[in-house]
């Protein structure tokens, strides 16, 4: 190797680097979508902002398939960007709605996965030697199997509404917008899904039957 100049020191910086924020964070998500109509490159920033959130939602639903569906979700979103209406919906719920539609094409995989998780949770596990740790694990494991089984048993439309609420943390109105149904329909689907989930948990249910998440 030949050096024609002495390179600079690469030692640690004198002060620990601090968190930097996106300099061009000022454009809102909606503005980026709007700009991307004329300048498609603007859309890439939305991937940077939301990929992790969308993937997390997908991974909870379809496991490893989430890697592929993440890509599909953003490709669909990009192709449909002209139809996005910021006055109806923010971009994050819009993307989660598209992700939900993408998952719909893989409902069998999703259900199979929940059933496999339920079976897996039912098998005896090696919990190590720490009594406290094994107690926590056993408690969690006791819930994971029935929860997965409960999700497998829900109607797909009810499951979509429930998981957009629980994992997507969307409001009722947002769920209605992304599923394209009235808010009343969302309420009825959620009531049914939550009732069935509680029933499926049966004896292992740890929640307070009077504890309800506020209607949003």
């Amino acid at each position, binding site marked *: 190797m030949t050096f024609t100049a002495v390179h600079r020191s690469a030692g640690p910086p004198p002060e620990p680097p601090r*968190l930097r924020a996106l300099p061009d964070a*000022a454009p809102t998500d909606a503005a980026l979508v709007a700009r991307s109509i004329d300048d498609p490159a603007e859309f890439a920033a939305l991937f940077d902002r939301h990929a992790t959130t969308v993937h997390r939602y997908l991974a909870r639903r379809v496991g490893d398939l989430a890697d592929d569906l993440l890509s599909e979700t953003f490709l669909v979103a990009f192709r449909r960007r002209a139809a996005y209406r910021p006055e109806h919906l923010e971009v994050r719920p819009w993307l989660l709605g598209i992700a939900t539609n993408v998952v719909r094409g893989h409902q069998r995989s999703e259900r199979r996965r929940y059933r496999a998780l339920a079976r897996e949770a039912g098998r005896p596990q090696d919990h190590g030697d720490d009594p406290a740790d094994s107690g926590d694990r056993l408690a969690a494991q006791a819930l994971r199997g029935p929860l997965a089984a409960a999700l497998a048993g829900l109607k797909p439309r009810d499951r979509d509404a429930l998981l957009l609420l629980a994992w997507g943390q969307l409001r009722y109105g947002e769920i209605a917008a992304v599923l394209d149904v009235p808010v009343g329909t969302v309420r009825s689907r959620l009531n049914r899904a939550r009732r069935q989930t509680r029933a499926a948990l049966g004896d292992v249910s740890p929640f307070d039957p009077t504890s309800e998440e506020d209607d949003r």
Partner: protein
Amino acid sequence: MNDLQLLRDAGPDGAPLSPAARSAARAALLAEIEGAGMRTAPRRAVRKGRTVALRTCLGAATAAAAWAGAVAIAGPDATDPAPRGMTLVAVDEITFPLSLDPAPAGMTPSFTGSAGDPEAIAGYSFPDGTGFAIYLSPTEIPPGDGPHHTDSGTVAVGGVDARYVAGVTPKLCTMANVCLEDVPFAEVIWERAPGQWVRLSGDGAHGDVAALVAVGESLVDRPQPINLQVGLAPAGWSVVDWHESSGAIGVASDEDPTRSLTVQCMPEAPAGATEMDNGSVERRIAAVTALDPPVTTTVGGRPAQVVHAADYLDAELRFWLVAWELPDGALCTVQTPEGFTRADVLAIAEGVTYEP
């Protein structure tokens, strides 16, 4: 606990988004965008060399490569892995043309731009991610338009008429992974000098026209270095662009811009409203398809790993990747085409400085 919380805490979960999966998904999106860009003839021209870089990046297995493409295999060195080395030369310091005097207290700057392009961005942020951005353009910048704008008009910045808009964003999640509600924002646009239009966009404490006017009046014609610098690059290669929100700088061959390398330093992922994971040296290296076992080494005295790897979709697409972590957790990488030797890659890495 209710059933929703139970679903969140004990419901099925999946593996977090890996750098490889993120890179592949982003590359697929960029390829789609590139295609759409060619179909719709966007107003902004595609930068030299980027078209090919984006194509070659399809399926690239690291986040470092994904933002700007990166690895292209071409030229005689690609088939000659002998460690004969390259001539490395010092790289001119990358700067933003303006500074703030006085510098804003408690704010961290970051910069975006590309070589030879008068468009550039400097962002100044508080730890919660709010702050302001300075956007420079050679042409007049139209004011923003959105459903949350509540006020607009004109104001003087240093005696020059400027247009402003202001409003309130109902919900804002910043890159610091902090989500805020009802955040004031403002934007001020004026021609600071002939052919130099400035747009100041601020939120939070800077979501106020008067605050932005004060920032505008503190701008001085004094170039300031960006935080991430490439100290060394092969002779005949030049810095193409930099995007510090992605923590990355692209460097390409002058003769063949499809041959490029990427330097990236990302700060430690913040905890907050949404899951973020910056990974580690080991995970970043493990995310690529190694052709040979990774080698443990040091960069700037810090533990590092370097690996000769292949794209997981195209085994013919080979590259070098070195990763190291700074004391505060910032993860840095250099990725080069295969024609480089391991010693070249490590020398380039040693030349990288990152001082936000």
